[in-house]
């Protein structure tokens, strides 16, 4: 990556000059600048709505710029469509994967450019062979004939990358490539990026994860409200500085959990939870006013715990005791009746009625109890209640009649929170509460979670972002392979310790442990034993 600085006098690989793009009512980009040098990874950061996606869509030919110019290797560049962009060597990996889940890995990689016999017939043999060669060359853990829909998110991401690199890409643009990856997978991805970067190629890397930029990028370009702000040398700058430029103010990100109190009453007690799919002997307690963090690698079973709690997955054995009484929760509606609210990691699919008003979303779960009489809707009551929550949670929306999909990610999340608060839930399960939410809005969600806990609500927070778990949780349950391998209090928790338990295999043999790079393979965790366990 040092080569980037040795190119004397040569034009930059990609240059964006004075580009503007408007949509009806919105100026998405104004006087935008960007310069990608040869052989570098340039991070592009900005809050949601700052214009990153618009810029990407201009570069990939999905939109056409109103003003300004693009240059590739010093030559003026006019992109007319996604395919032409790829043929010019610009490959874009969008945040929403552009994959066909029913097709195989090979079929996805070469879609639109299938090896053919004649012009109409497919040559499946050549297709699979070429896919195999590409996968080998990139060292990807994929098989040409695997059906993409059956792959994990991380592997689907790799299919996307293989697809992009199947074209002889010179400029690779990645939008939030690690949003759904765990740390180990991120490392694999970064390795792939480093191998891709050559003296004649470059990467534009869009991310919300500040810690990553330090690891992978050479320079950071910050944009805000559709305008260019600054470009900084990653090594010579601190992430605080970058964030300050992004949001236009400083953020205290080294905050610690607030209001930690011992001896609060136990609201929920789970013991010996087993499910057919994954969970093994999961036991924990949740106190009133507590934020209990759930950490672990992807697939460790964190979401499954939530699903089992709200009755979305069937229990094989185990008991759930709620407010001192053993309860049987057979489906999410049951859970809601017991005033347990589950906020899915996939807000857009499971949390919101995207096409409906904010108002309708907030009232949804409480329609029967609060907002109807004899089957007729009490619209005014619902609107008033919604207005109340829009103001207490400071949801930024022009009115409660706004359609939910028009809100930003952070405000959408607040709408979902409001829905469960109206329902008077006192146990809230957050699955990745800040996924896809920009840095500024994240802080607001954190603040809100702290306030809720202080009001006595109990919160289970599942998160893949370790810093988030560490700063928010009063206690942290660390999971690995369907078991809780460690239960840490806020003072004993550290990044290293959580990772230690997260990579612990509950019934591991020594050889596997060496592969994982663990120092002490003998340490086998059970919740009670690991509390005392030291590194």
């Amino acid at each position, binding site marked *: 990556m040092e080569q980037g600085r040795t190119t004397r006098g040569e034009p930059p690989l990609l240059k964006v000059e004075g580009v503007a793009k408007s949509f009806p009512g919105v100026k998405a980009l104004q006087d935008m600048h960007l310069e990608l040098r040869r052989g570098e990874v340039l991070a592009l950061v900005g809050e949601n709505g700052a214009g990153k996606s618009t810029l990407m869509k201009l570069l*990939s030919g*999905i939109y056409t710029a109103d003003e300004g110019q693009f240059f590739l290797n010093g030559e003026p560049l006019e992109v007319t*469509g*996604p*395919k*032409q962009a*790829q043929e010019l060597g610009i490959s874009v990996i*969008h945040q929403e*994967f*552009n*994959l*066909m*889940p*029913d*097709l195989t890995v090979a*079929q996805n990689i070469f*879609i*639109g450019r*299938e090896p*053919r016999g004649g012009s*109409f*017939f*497919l040559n*499946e*043999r050549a297709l*699979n*062979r070429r896919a*195999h060669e590409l996968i*080998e060359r990139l060292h990807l853990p994929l*098989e*040409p*004939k*695997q*059906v993409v829909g*059956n792959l994990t998110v991380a592997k689907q991401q790799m299919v996307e990358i293989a*697809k992009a690199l199947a074209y002889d890409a010179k400029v690779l643009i990645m939008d939030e490539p690690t949003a759904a990856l765990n740390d180990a997978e991120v490392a694999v991805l970064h390795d792939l990026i480093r191998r891709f970067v050559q003296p004649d190629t470059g990467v534009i890397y869009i991310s919300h994860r500040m810690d990553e930029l330090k690891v992978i990028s050479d320079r950071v370009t910050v944009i805000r409200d559709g305008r260019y702000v600054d470009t900084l040398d990653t090594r010579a700058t601190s992430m605080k500085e970058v964030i300050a430029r992004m949001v236009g103010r400083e953020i205290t990100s080294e905050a610690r959990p607030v209001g930690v109190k011992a001896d609060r009453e136990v609201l929920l007690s789970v013991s010996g939870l087993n499910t057919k799919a994954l969970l093994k002997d999961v036991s924990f307690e949740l106190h009133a006013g507590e934020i209990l963090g759930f950490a672990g690698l992807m697939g460790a079973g964190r979401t499954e715990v939530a699903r089992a709690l709200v009755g979305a997955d069937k229990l094989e054995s185990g008991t759930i005791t709620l407010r001192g009484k053993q309860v049987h929760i057979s489906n999410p509606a049951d859970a809601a009746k017991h005033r347990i609210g589950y906020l899915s990691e996939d807000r857009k699919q499971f949390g919101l009625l995207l096409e409906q008003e904010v108002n309708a979303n907030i009232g949804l779960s409480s329609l029967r109890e609060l907002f109807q009489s004899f089957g007729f809707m009490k619209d005014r009551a619902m609107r008033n209640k919604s207005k109340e929550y829009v103001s207490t949670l400071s949801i930024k929306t022009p009115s409660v009649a706004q359609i939910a999909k028009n809100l930003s990610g952070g405000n959408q999340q607040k709408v979902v929170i409001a829905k469960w608060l109206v329902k008077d839930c006192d146990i809230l399960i957050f699955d990745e509460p800040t996924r896809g939410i920009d840095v500024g809005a994240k802080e607001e969600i954190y603040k809100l979670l702290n306030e809720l806990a202080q009001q006595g609500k109990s919160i289970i927070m599942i998160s893949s972002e370790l810093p988030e778990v560490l700063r928010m949780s009063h206690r942290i349950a660390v999971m690995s392979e369907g078991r809780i391998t460690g239960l840490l209090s806020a003072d004993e928790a550290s990044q290293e310790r959580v990772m230690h338990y997260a990579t612990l295999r509950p019934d591991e043999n020594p050889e596997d442990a060496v592969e994982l790079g663990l120092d002490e393979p003998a340490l086998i965790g059970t919740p009670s034993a690991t509390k005392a366990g030291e590194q």
Partner: protein
Amino acid sequence: MTTSTVPPQQEEQQPAAVALGATLRDRLQQFLAFASLIVIFAFFSVASPNFLNYTNVTAILFSTVVIGTLALGTTFVIITGGIDLSIGTGMALCAVISGVLIVNAGLPVPLGVLGAVLFGGLIGLINGVNIALLKLPPFIATLAMMLVAQGLALVISKSTPIYFTDSPSYVKISTGHLIPGLNLPNAVIILAVLAVVAGVLLNKTILGRYTYSIGSNEEATALSGINVRTWKIIIYTLAGLFIGLAGVLISARLGSAQPATGTGYELQAIAAVVIGGTSLAGGKGSIVGTVIGALIISVLNNGLQIMSIPQEWQNVILGCVILVAVYADMARKRAA
């Protein structure tokens, strides 16, 4: 099949097993449909002494032809995530066109057939343009076309059937016996050929690949640089050509073009596709499945008839079979 294209020394043990498992699962779906076909067939063979004989089995195959032909074209449309409701009345309209060209205008039979098939293509082309360019939902676009075709068939024929009495060679298209000594109507052979053509198109050509691709994720397909609009128009036009073929086959079989028929065929054809395991959500499906689905429907119709079960009850049973078939398919996917 799974392992032959990759050099063995590079093949790892576990992924090969996984790929093989996936292939087996795909095969299982067709196997299930096929197994139900066998079970239903066996049931009627035992239940009625008049069911299992050469004449009746030929009759079953013969009665599969029209539904089967329509279902083949519709399979492509449904795999893209679309639907085509115009195939039934469209077929009646194509039959009328065939009658007009051959009987009224006196064109030679091959030209008349070509005209009718191309007219079917035109119906599909209009559907495709409405759906791909004007962005009408497939359900609405083809529902409208269904009504238009129904009306036009009556208008053009002045609401009277057109008889092919003077064109015996036309009638032979369906009822003749091309293979001497084998008492198999030509229509059955034509259906078999059409099924093979459809299978090749779906599995071996870029048309088929893009059909699956569009149904699997239309936006991603477009972003991959594929002209989704053009391909959708082509796919609906292809389905239209099958409508035209079905129009020829049914009128040749009846010896007349019946303008008032056609309604109901679209649902039977869609039922055949769905029983065959093609997902209405798009992305999944197969020609083999569709052929099996069409056979299940005609075996049921025939068997129930032979057992003297009234027509009304036959529909009730067919409806239940569709429910069971789709439920079984979904249960299998959940388990997988």
